[in-house]
């Protein structure tokens, strides 16, 4: 067992143990914090597929996070106000069932990622960073100025949506659900990274010309990675909106894109479990420093700067040593 695997196990165990302990001590707030960490970790894992495996620096992943959030908000809003989502040409009703909402969130994110990716991947380098940011801003401003679903004020949902067999309003049950989703996503992504597609994608990141020379199309590999990445981030957006029972354009803002990127970097780029460590650390810092001083972003900024300048592998780089192979 490598140190990285050991660290993965410890990390997942701690993320499970803390809320369980909080549950037995009756501290629902800590459970909520852990739930937030688990959900944001999913978003980071999603971005990491594009960023870590494919080397695609997307500065607009908030768009998928927010679309997932709005998928939940809009469907639940219509279900709870008993108004159909649309009537012509056929009637679509809202829903309060999480599995359906997740499917819709993933579907919408896949479509958005296909469109954004197909256009953005025509560019590279700094142009790619900026065009993904521009697409996210486009959707952000649309959400702000479109009055039907709350515009700038966002959209509240009275009751958290349901999952068959669970009482999602109970913090520990909702945490378990999110933790389960996180585990499944991690399982999927670590298999993806070792699959022929994942290996080819990493090869395309390191040397697109050679990948082309053996008959593969980097563009297609990148686009597939971008779509998978967007879908995972969209799913986490739906979970996040359900946690807060609220969705607003903030979920689409470029600060959100930056934060998702921070999870990946704090944890360690390209490590499958890295974003879990990053998101957990972020939530921990937000909680500890936020209690210490209202200006906690100064410390966050300083720390991020330190990681970028001096500790390039993030937490995983510090604790698990250098990555075993490549680059």
């Amino acid at each position, binding site marked *: 067992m490598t140190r990285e695997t050991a660290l993965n196990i410890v990390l997942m165990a701690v993320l499970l143990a803390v809320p369980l302990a909080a549950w037995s001590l009756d501290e629902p707030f800590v459970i909520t914090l852990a739930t937030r960490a688990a959900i944001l970790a999913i978003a980071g894992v999603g971005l990491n597929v594009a960023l870590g495996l494919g080397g695609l620096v997307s500065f607009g992943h908030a768009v998928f996070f927010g679309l997932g959030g709005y998928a939940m908000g809009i469907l639940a809003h219509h279900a709870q106000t008993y108004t159909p989502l649309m009537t012509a040409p056929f009637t679509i009703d809202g829903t309060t069932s999480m599995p359906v909402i997740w499917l819709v969130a993933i579907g919408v994110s896949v479509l958005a990622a296909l469109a954004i990716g197909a256009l953005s991947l025509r560019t590279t380098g700094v142009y790619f960073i*900026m065009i993904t940011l*521009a697409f996210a801003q486009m959707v952000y401003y649309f959400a702000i100025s479109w009055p039907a679903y709350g515009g700038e004020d966002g959209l509240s949902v009275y009751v958290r949506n349901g999952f068959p067999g669970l009482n999602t309003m109970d913090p520990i049950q909702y945490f378990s659900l999110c933790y389960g989703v996180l585990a499944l996503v991690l399982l999927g992504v670590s298999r993806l990274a070792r699959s022929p597609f994942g290996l080819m994608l990493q090869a395309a990141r390191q040397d697109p010309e050679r990948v082309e020379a053996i008959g593969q199309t980097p563009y297609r590999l990148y686009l597939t990675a971008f779509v998978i990445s967007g879908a995972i981030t969209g799913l986490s957006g739906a979970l996040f909106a359900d946690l807060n029972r609220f969705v607003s354009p903030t979920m689409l803002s470029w600060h959100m894109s930056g934060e998702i*990127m921070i999870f990946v970097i704090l944890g360690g780029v390209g490590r499958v479990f890295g974003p879990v460590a990053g998101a957990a650390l972020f939530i921990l810092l937000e909680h500890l420093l936020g209690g210490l001083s209202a200006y906690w972003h100064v410390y966050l900024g300083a720390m991020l700067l330190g990681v*970028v300048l001096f500790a*390039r592998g993030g937490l995983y780089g510090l604790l698990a040593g250098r990555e075993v192979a490549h680059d």
Partner: protein
Amino acid sequence: MSLILLAEQTLNGLQFGMMLFLMAAGLTLIFGVMGLINLAHGSLYMVGAFIAAATAAFTGSFLLALIASLAAAALAGVLIEMTIIRRLYERDHLDQVLATFALILIFSEGTRWVFGSFPLYLDIPDALSGTVTLPFGVEYSLYRLVLIGVGLVIALGLFLLIGKTRLGIRIRAGENDREMIGALGVDISRLYTLVFALGAALAGLAGALIGAIQSVQVGMGEPVLILAFVVIVIGGIGSIKGALVGALLVGLTDTLGRFLLPKAFALVLDPSQATAIGSALASMAIYILMAGVLILRPRGLFGGAAS
């Protein structure tokens, strides 16, 4: 819709574009010469605005406020260049984005800590307040007209600086081949600091000038920063000419889009729906423009070999 109103909005668009140019010129120079994406450029804009507002409140002089904002932004630029930015030139874009994002967090919270969360106000000086009557009976704010003029003068100054002076030759040489000019005996790290300070000073000046028509508050730099990036991506990164054309294009598209699109939709839809759709589309217009330009010309309108 009267033509006078349209003329006024067009002037507003030009004024907005000129201020964007001040931001974008610095960004594009810094990217062109050093290959650095500087997200903290908006923070320098904010620093300029805050220092100007504080100086104006203290001394009562708008001119002193402008000078102070230029100096403070340039100084802040030199400071972060020498301590942090310098380490990022050889890094990949991801590291640059994150490190400068971290700088934004530090600058924003630091400013909030020093000046508090309430917005400051900077008044237009008496000599420049009021309106002037332009040909065809267009009434327009004198201060905004002056902003357009200042933008034009600075654009001209930059073209002369880049095209005619020794510093300009070095900057252009730095864009082409930084190792070569180092080998020819130019002190590269001083050149880099200088270019960064120049960009920072322009951003600070833009912040101070805009501060007189908007409230001066934490976070004011971010929308402008993103627009400035849109500008340089449309214009082609590294090109001053591209920055000017892109800035005017973005300024006009945004202002006229907000003005015309709701009216255009009102011709076919009922008024409330037209306003909703029109304003939603208008707020997206510049991003649609940028996506369109990049799809047709992935390196921007005037983009050369830079990547």
